[in-house]
């Protein structure tokens, strides 16, 4: 027995080995903003002509501008967040990254080895996004015009782009809101324009501006964080009344939504690698310590991570339970005698299995529940339950099919009714066979929940994105997130294995329950 326990210990330890390797190897990649000797920047590519024909990374939305500015054919690579594109630049995957100037400046500050190319790509103007024919558009434009004239814009720029960290917090909503409430969706990965600041509070130039305008108009603002890519769909579907996130005013977007007059004039620039920077001082451990501090400790970010983790676990567990129940129901429908019912269930499974979960979630959130005020978490649970049910029903069905017909015939012959036979004889045997597969499917669903950021839910992955965009440290938060996912996936696997073992009759103690042996 002792030996078994020991061996088990070894097995468990072996399981965690990859994590340790992971953790110790990665800081080698992670070069953090320790003290650096800064020379004058020596951009690898100094002008738009030099960059011709190279690979350029960006988040969506810059390609039209870039094509206008560059004479040559360039390859464009699209990244989900600005941070990711900067990471790619540093890792040498792309030769330049296209960003808005404020963001680029911050990235240069937080990461060594990159600088802004002297040539700018284009002037850019950011606008607040409104649905077509929004009643608010006119009034916001009036206020923005006034802000330009009375120096408010300039004050905002000073506050957010250069100012003291201490001052960077939003104005409080202390006005009455006589004219109602507007729902405001914003991106949160675009420091300093819109990001998560101290103590997990939303912050940034964009948000401050919207709040100040709302104050002028005496409107309350209800803020929600949303992926940049999903801002326009959120406006179109009516989930949001206004949205912003450093969004360039382009003719193309104007086809679908309206823009306010520009509230910020800036430039689109290219970030390139800086050849003038040498290896930083401080070394590996210092870098790791710094990263750990900025990812977890600073501004109590662990609190955000914990909340994100909670959301991930909540969505997974609820979807697991509902998905299993629905899957069981579906499986029963597929075993019915009536052909239309069977075909209906089969069609449902095909449909769900044939759709990427992200697309499915976005359809649910922005179209099906588009006009209903429902939390993204609820939609995520609905979406994942539906998705999970399609897979579990097939697994349960396969499990039931593997129980040979003789087992139920023997039960019938003894006088068991159909339902007694199913519950006492067939199902327990099927469960032993489908549980192991189900376990794997559940764990893969836990990991799949990392896409819920698309429907404005702040789960673990989204939180880590937000933190990365704030610290501009690309590697450490990613690795930390991976380790956390690994840990919860393992814990859940453990819990399910325990359940699986406890229903496996062969692992039970060999005794007859409720009986005095004689």
């Amino acid at each position, binding site marked *: 027995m002792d030996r078994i326990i020991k061996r088990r210990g070894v097995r468990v330890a072996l399981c965690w080995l990859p994590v340790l390797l992971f953790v110790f190897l990665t800081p080698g990649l992670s070069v953090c903003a320790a003290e650096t000797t800064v020379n004058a920047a020596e951009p690898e590519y100094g002008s738009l002509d030099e960059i011709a024909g190279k690979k350029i990374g960006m988040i969506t939305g810059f390609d039209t501008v870039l094509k206008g500015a560059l004479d040559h054919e360039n390859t464009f690579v699209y990244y989900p967040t600005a941070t990711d594109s900067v990471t790619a630049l540093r890792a040498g995957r792309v030769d330049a990254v296209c960003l808005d100037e404020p963001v680029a400046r911050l990235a240069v500050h937080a990461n060594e080895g990159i600088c802004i190319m002297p040539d700018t790509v284009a002037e850019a103007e950011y606008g607040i996004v409104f649905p077509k024919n929004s009643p608010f558009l006119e009034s916001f434009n009036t206020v923005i015009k006034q802000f330009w004239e009375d120096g408010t814009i300039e004050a905002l720029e000073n506050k957010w782009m250069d100012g003291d960290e201490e001052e960077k917090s939003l104005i409080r909503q202390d006005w009455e809101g006589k004219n109602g409430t507007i729902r405001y969706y914003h991106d949160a990965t675009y420091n300093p324009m819109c990001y998560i600041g101290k103590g997990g509070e939303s912050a940034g130039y964009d948000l401050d501006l919207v709040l100040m305008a709302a104050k002028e108009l005496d409107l309350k603002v209800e803020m929600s964080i949303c992926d940049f890519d999903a801002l326009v769909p959120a406006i179109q579907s009516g989930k949001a009344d206004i949205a912003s996130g450093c969004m360039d005013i382009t003719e193309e977007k104007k086809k679908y939504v309206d823009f306010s007059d520009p509230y910020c004039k800036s430039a689109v620039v290219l970030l390139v690698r800086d050849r003038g920077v040498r290896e930083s001082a401080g070394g590996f451990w210092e870098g790791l310590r710094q990263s750990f501090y900025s990812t977890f400790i600073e501004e109590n970010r662990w609190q955000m991570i914990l909340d994100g983790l909670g959301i991930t676990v909540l969505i997974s567990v609820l979807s697991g339970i509902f998905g299993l129940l629905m899957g069981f129901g579906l499986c029963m429908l597929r075993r019915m005698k009536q052909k239309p019912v069977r075909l209906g269930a089969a069609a449902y499974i095909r449909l769900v299995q044939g759709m990427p979960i992200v697309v499915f979630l976005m359809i649910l959130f922005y179209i099906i529940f588009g006009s209903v005020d429902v939390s993204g978490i609820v939609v995520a649970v609905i979406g994942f339950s539906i998705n999970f049910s399609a897979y579990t029903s097939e697994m349960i069905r396969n499990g039931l099919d593997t129980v040979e017909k*003789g087992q139920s015939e023997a039960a019938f012959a003894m006088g068991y009714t159909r339902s007694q036979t199913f519950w006492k004889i067939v199902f327990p045997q099927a469960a032993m066979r489908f549980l192991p597969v189900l376990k794997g499917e559940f764990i893969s669903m836990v990991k799949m929940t990392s896409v819920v950021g698309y429907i404005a839910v702040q789960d673990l992955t989204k939180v880590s994105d937000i933190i990365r965009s704030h610290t501009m440290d690309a590697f450490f938060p990613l690795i930390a997130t991976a380790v956390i996912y690994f840990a919860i996936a393992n814990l859940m696997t453990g819990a399910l294995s325990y359940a699986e073992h406890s229903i496996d009759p062969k692992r039970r103690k060999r005794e*007859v329950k409720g009986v005095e042996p004689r």
Partner: protein
Amino acid sequence: MIQISHLRKEYASVTPLKDISAEIKKGEVISIIGPSGTGKSTLLRCINLLETPTGGEIVIDGETITDKKCRIHLVRRKMGMVFQGFHLFSHMTIIENIMAGPVDLLHKPRQEAYERGMELLRMVGLADKALAFADELSGGQKQRAAIARTLSMEPEIILFDEPTSALDPTMVGEVLAVIRTLAGQGLTMLIVTHEMKFARDVSTRIFYMDQGEIYEDGTPEQIFEHPRRERTRQFIRRLKVFTASINSRDFDFIGMNSQIEEYGRRHLIPQKIIYHFQEIFEELCVQILLPVLPEDVSIQLTAAYSQEESCIQLRVQYNGSAFDPSDCDNPTALALVKYASKKLEYLGYSAEDGMNTVVLTIEE
């Protein structure tokens, strides 16, 4: 106890039961024998409605089970079944298998079910396997456990569906011994089996089934000693029949030889008998008969092998004019034929169909 009238079961392509009528009294032990594929198992499975009959009526203990309104699970509780494939519940230990029915269906206290279960296990000699799982037992042990499970429901009728067919020959005995002890305890038993000696010893009555009907129904003595009908006789004497015909001088000689070999292999006929058969075929048919027969040659061979007598009765019929092979002018071939056969007899020429008939007996 069981009345079956005009029972019929048909599938899209076959009709395993054509028209079965029988009356089975309480305490009768009936063995159902017959060639494979003649509906024996189907009949048994119709009696507890594991197969739904296409027509006819079955009445058990005054209850018409073929009636749609019948609550069949209640009838099944007093009618156990032992399967060829055992079908012990694989997620339960042996004792749990045996306790399941009484606890779940008869609502007996677990303690009582356990004690009765252990008693039954002792009876079938498996008390020490109470906590084992089915896949830890040998085939014979599984079947004995399955019988104990059937008995735990205290049935009045037990249906045995080829209980020893899936077993190694070494394990058949232990299972038959258990069934033997049950016979004569007042249980009504229907046993589908291929164990003739067992059927004869243990039964009070035998159904010989052939081609979807009860072809002959009688006491063991009558069926085994004095079968009244032809197919019963053939089956009881275990005649294995081989027929072939030669209609051309250029027939496939090698093919014919291998057909004879295959026939021997299939029925486990001693190799020596088959050698003799092949020799007779070559010398008699090819060397002696073919040269003297007319152009439109026709030779019919019918061989019947009896396991009990370990010999083949070979009947050779051929056309042409009257011709006794003993009169042929090929003494070597004739000598070989005579050497290979125990007895050679020319039965003469029938003017009716224009055929000569020779009968030979081939022994080891």
